[in-house]
C-alpha cells in the first residue's frame, strides 16, 4: 500500500475500523448518528468504507455538504438524491422546474415555504416507496453547512433546517442519517443559542467519537506502508511501532511520516523517524498545521477571557511532571491562578474543562483528573509555547 496523506484510501486500506463500522450499522437500525472526531483521525475514510462496502440491505448516499450555502440548495440536493435513488430523477427535475415556474409571484416567501416542503416531501416519498434497501444519508461537514447558512440567511434559517431534519427523524421512524464534521456541531449550536435560537437538534442522535487507531492496527498500517513504499529498515516491527507511537496512532500522520521518509529517501530507523517528527513539530512552516490548536482558541472560546484561560490551562497540563498522570481540578485551578488566569472559581474552571474535553484537547479519567488527550499535541504545545 502506498502512503497517501490526505487522499482517498482504498476501503481495504482503512485499517482498524471494522468494529466501529459494525457498531455504526447496528446503531443505524434504531437511530441516526452524530459522529465527531479530531481532524486527521480519518472519519471521512470510515464513511467511505461504509459507502463502498455497505451492510447488506442498506444503501448509503454520501454528500459533502460544505458546498451548500442555503436551505434551498440543501433541500434540492436531498430531493435530487432521493429521486435518483427511487429512479425517478428525470420526473423530479420536471417537477422542480414546473414548481418554480408556476409560482413566480412572491418568490421570496415562496422560497421560505418551499424548501421545507421539498425536503419533507422528498423524505416522505422515500419512506412511502416500496424498496428492497434502506437509504441512509451520510452528510459530511454538516456543521460547515449550518454555519454557512447562518452567515448567508441568518440564524433562524440555520436552526430551522436542523429542526426540520430533527422532526423528520421523529416523524419518519425509518429515516436515517449520519452527521459528521471537522468542527464540533456543539460550537455551531452554541452560536445559534447565543443568537437567541436554542435547539435540541442532536439530542435524539447516537453520539460517537472516532478515536485514533488501536496500537496494533496503527503498527500494521505503518508496516504495510513501509513495505509498500519500499523503504529500507533494519527492523520492520520496531520501525512501525516507533512511527505509530510517535504520532499517537493517528492514521493521517502515519501516512505522512512514511511519505516523508520516502521523499527524503531515509531508512526507517528509530532515530530517523523521531528526527522527522521532531522537525515537523518545530518547522516554522508548520507542515502538520498544529498551530490550529492554538489559533482556533479565539473562535472556539469567544466569550470574555475564555480563550486566554484555556491557553493557560493547557500550559499547566503541558507542564505536568508526568504527562500520563491526570491533574486534579483543584491543582489545575491553583496552578492556573498562579499563571495569571482569570478563571473565577471551580465551577468556571469545570465549565472550560468540559468544553475542552468536547473539543478533544483533554481527556478525563474516572476520578475526575484531566490531561492532554493526545501526547503529540502536548509535545507540540510545549514546544510552541516555549514551556
Amino acid at each position, binding site marked *: *500500500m*502506498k*502512503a*497517501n*496523506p*490526505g*487522499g*482517498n*484510501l*482504498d*476501503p*481495504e*486500506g482503512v485499517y482498524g475500523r471494522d468494529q466501529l463500522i459494525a457498531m455504526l450499522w447496528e446503531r443505524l437500525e434504531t437511530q441516526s448518528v452524530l459522529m465527531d472526531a479530531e*481532524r*486527521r483521525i480519518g472519519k*471521512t475514510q470510515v464513511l467511505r468504507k461504509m459507502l*463502498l462496502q455497505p451492510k447488506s440491505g442498506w444503501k448509503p448516499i*454520501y*454528500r*459533502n455538504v*460544505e*458546498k451548500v*450555502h442555503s436551505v434551498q440548495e440543501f433541500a434540492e440536493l436531498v430531493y435530487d438524491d432521493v429521486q435518483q435513488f427511487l429512479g425517478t430523477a428525470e420526473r423530479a427535475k420536471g417537477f422542480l422546474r414546473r414548481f418554480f415556474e408556476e409560482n413566480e409571484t412572491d418568490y421570496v416567501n415562496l422560497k421560505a415555504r418551499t424548501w421545507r416542503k421539498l425536503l419533507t416531501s422528498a423524505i416522505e416519498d422515500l419512506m412511502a416507496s416500496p424498496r428492497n434497501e434502506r437509504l441512509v444519508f451520510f452528510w*459530511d461537514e454538516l456543521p460547515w453547512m449550518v454555519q454557512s447558512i447562518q452567515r448567508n440567511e441568518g440564524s433562524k434559517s440555520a436552526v430551522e433546517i436542523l429542526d426540520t431534519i430533527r422532526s423528520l427523524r421523529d416523524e419518519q421512524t425509518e429515516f436515517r442519517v449520519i452527521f459528521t464534521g471537522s468542527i464540533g456541531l456543539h460550537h455551531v449550536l452554541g452560536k445559534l443559542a447565543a443568537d437567541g435560537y436554542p435547539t435540541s437538534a442532536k439530542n435524539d442522535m447516537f453520539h460517537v467519537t472516532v478515536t485514533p487507531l488501536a496500537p496494533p492496527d496503527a503498527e500494521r498500517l505503518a508496516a504495510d506502508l513501509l513495505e509498500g513504499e519500499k523503504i*529500507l*529498515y*533494519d527492523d520492520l516491527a520496531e520501525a512501525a511501532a516507533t512511527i505509530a507511537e510517535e504520532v499517537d496512532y493517528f492514521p*493521517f500522520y502515519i501516512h505522512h511520516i512514511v*511519505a516523508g521518509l*520516502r*521523499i527524503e*529517501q531515509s531508512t526507517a530507523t528509530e532515530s530517523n523517524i523521531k528526527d522527522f517528527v521532531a522537525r515537523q513539530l518545530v518547522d516554522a*512552516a*508548520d*507542515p502538520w*498545521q498544529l498551530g*490550529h490548536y492554538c489559533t*482556533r482558541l479565539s473562535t472556539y472560546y469567544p466569550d470574555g477571557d475564555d480563550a486566554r484561560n484555556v491557553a493557560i490551562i493547557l500550559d499547566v497540563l503541558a507542564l505536568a511532571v508526568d504527562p500520563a498522570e491526570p491533574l486534579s481540578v483543584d491543582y489545575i485551578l491553583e496552578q492556573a491562578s498562579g499563571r495569571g488566569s482569570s478563571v473565577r472559581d471551580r465551577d468556571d474552571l469545570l465549565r472550560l474543562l468540559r468544553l475542552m474535553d468536547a473539543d478533544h484537547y483533554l481527556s478525563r479519567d474516572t476520578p475526575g483528573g484531566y490531561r492532554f488527550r493526545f501526547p503529540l499535541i502536548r509535545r507540540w504545545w510545549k514546544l510552541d509555547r516555549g514551556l
Partner: protein
Amino acid sequence: MKNSSKKLSASDQLRFTDEQFIWRFSPNQTDPELLEAIFVGREPLLQNVLEKIADSATSGATHHVLIYAPRGIGKSHFTALLHHRLVNDEKLNESVQIAWLNEDETTTSMVQLLVRIYRSLCRWYPNDYSANWLDELLDQSPQEIAAVLTRRLVARFEKRKLVILIENLNLLFENLSTDGQHQLRTLLQEHPFACLIATSQQLFKAVTDRSEPFFGFFQQIPLKPLSLSEAQQLLVKIAETKGQADLVQFLNTPDGRGRVRAIHDLAGGNHRVYIVLSGFVTRESLDQLVAPFQKMADDLTPYYQERLRWISPLQRQIVELLCRQHGTINPKEIARRLLMDQRSIGKQVRILEEIGYLTSTKRGRETYYELSEPLMRLAYEVKEQSLLQMLIEFLRIWYRPDEMQKLSTAGLSSSTQAYVDAAWERSQTTPDPRLKLLQEELERAEAEGRSHELAALWEEKAAASKEPSDWFQAGYYFDEINKEHARAIDCYDKSLELNPKDAVAWSNKGNPLIKLGRYEEALTCYDKSLELNPKDAVAWSNKGNPLIKLGRYEEALACYEKSLELDPKSAYPRFNRSEPLFAMHRWDEGFEAIRDAFLQSKLDNLGDTATMFSLIFRLSEDDARLQSRISTLVDLYQQAAEERGYCKPTQGAERRRFGNVNADNDTSASDHPRSNLHSFRTVVNPLSHLADGLVKSLAKIDAERFTPAVLESCFAAVEQRVAKMPEFEIPLRLFRYGIRYLISGKESEFVELIQPERRILRQALGLPDEL
C-alpha cells in the same frame, strides 16, 4: 512503445545548439527526449509521483500531490516529463487519461474549470472526446453545462482515473474563490474519479489554513533547488546532448567545477538559470563571454524589474537592499539600514519569503535572508551601475587570478576591457571570491555530513589556492572517505611538490599506495617520511604494513616495536604485532601481543580482527589447531569485554585479569589528519568488534585456495566457539551464508536473509548492491 527513461545512445543522441537551450527553452514545448536527457536530481521524486498515480489507477485509493518551489526551480520541466512518462507508459495508458491544464489560462469558476479539463481531453484524446459536442454544449446555461460535464466525466472515469496536471494551482484557486474550491473539493470527494497533480510557487492559504476546503488534501512536496553537484550533472548532461565530449571532461576537472560554481553562485539552485547560463561554459574568449552575458542581462532585466513592481514599496526597499548586499542579512540589520521598525520588517520579510522573493536560513536563534534568485540583482544594477557588478564578480570566480592577469594584457574590445580591468583591480584589494565560496561550501558539507563531497571540494580549493595543506586535505579525503586511492596519490604528490619536506604527507601517501598493492613505493614514502622525522611513531607503524605484504615479517615487527618505543600507549602497532607473528606461525607470541595490547594501550583501536581471522583460517594446519586458535582469539576479546562490563564473566573459566585499563576514547583529529591503513574508531564492545571482523574476513578469504571442506571447517570452528554469544548471533549467521556463497558461488544462497542482512553481506563480499 518507447521506453522514455532509457539513456540515449551515441548514435541517436540529440544535438541542440546553444541558442535552442538558451533562448528558446520552454519545458512544455520542448522535445520530451531532451527533457529526459537533461533531467537530474529529481528521478526519485518523479518515480514516487508515478507510483502514486499507478496506485490511484489500480486501487480504490486516490492520491493528490502538490509540488511547490519558487519560480524557475524546474516545476514545469518536472510536469512536462511526468506527462511524457505517463503517455508513454503502456500499462498506465489503459487505466489513466490526462488533462494537462495550460498554466497561462485564467479560470474563475467551477464550470470553466470543467470545460478546460474536457477541452484538454479533446486535445489529447480526440477519438474519445468530441470538441464539437463540447462546443454545442456551451449554448446551455452554466449550471446545465456543469451538471452535464460532471456526469459525463464521472461516467467516463468510472473504471479508470483522470490525472489532472495543474500548473500554478495557487493562481487557479485564487481565481476560483472559496466557493469554487468548495465545489471542486466536494466533487472530488463525492466522486473520486480524478487525482490532482499540481504545482505552485509556494504553499498558500488555500492549502495551509485549516478553515480552507483544500487543507490537508494534497501531499505537499517541496522541489528543492539543485545542489552544486546536481548543477554540475545538469551541465554535463547538456554538454553530452550537444556532443561536446571535451567539455564533459573539462567539467569534471577542478577548473571546470570552478566554473560551475561561478554559475551556481548566480543561479542559486535555479534550474532555469543554469540552462540559460549553460552556454557560457564553453566560452573561452572573454569577448564571447562578456557579450552574451550582457545580452542575457538585457533580456532578463525587464522581467526582474517587472517583478519588483509587483510588490509594495517597503517590500521593494528590502529587496533592493538585498540586491546591493551580496549575501545574507537579518531583519534587525535590514531595519537598521532602512530606518524602520524591526517588527514590520520581520513581517515583510516573511511575506517576501512566502511569495518566493527571499529564502531564509537559521543560524542559532537568528534568521538570515537572501534573494531566492540572485539574478534579481540585475533589476537594481542595471539602473544603478555603469558596469554590472555581477559580471565583475562572475569573472573573478570564472578565471583564476593568474588567468585574469594574462587576459588583462590581451587585445580586447573596450567594453570587455573595462570589465577585466574592474575585476583585476578588485582582485588586488579583496580576497579571491572563489576561495570564500569554497570555504563556505566546505563548512556546509561538513556540517551536513556530506563527507563524500569533501575531497572534491578540497581539491578544487587547492587548485585555486595552491596551498600544499589544501592538496593534503584533498588527498586525505580521497583516500579515507571516497576510496579513490589513485586520485589521493595525485593530491599528495601535488602537496609534496609544493612542500617536499612535509613528513606527514610522505607518510600519508604511503597508505593509498598500499591499498593499490604498490608496496615498494609505499615503503619508499615511509622511509622518506622517517628521514624527515625519525621520531614519528605513526610513520613507523605504517611502515610495518607494506613490509608484511612483502613477506618481511621480522622487519615489520621491528617497525611496530620502534613505533611503540616512541608512543607506548598506541593501540594500532600493539595489536598489529600479532599479524607478522601469526604469519610466522609464532601463534603464542601473536596472542600474547593481543593480550598485551588490551593491557597496555589506550584502546583507540581494537586491532584488525578480519586479518586475524583470515590468518588463522589460512595458516592453521588442521581442524584441532584451527579450533583452538579461534577459541583463544575469542577468549581474549571476551575477557576484554568482561573487563569493560560489556558482558558477565564466564562461570568457571580461569582467566588472567587485564587490570584497570583506561578506555580512552580520544580520537580527536588534528588539523593535519593522519591516516593509518585502518580507520580509527572509538572503543566499542570488543566482542562486537571481533564479530565485525569475522564478517569482514570473508573478503580476505580466497575461495580458490580453500577446498569446500576447509571452508566448512572454518565455519564449524567459529560456530562451536561463539554459537551462544549474543554479539555473534547475526555476524555468525552472515558468516554462514558468506561461506556457503564462497563454496557454491551462487547468490541464491542469500535468499533466506532479510534485506539489511543481504546488504551487509554483499558489501562484505565485495558484491554490487542488489538492483
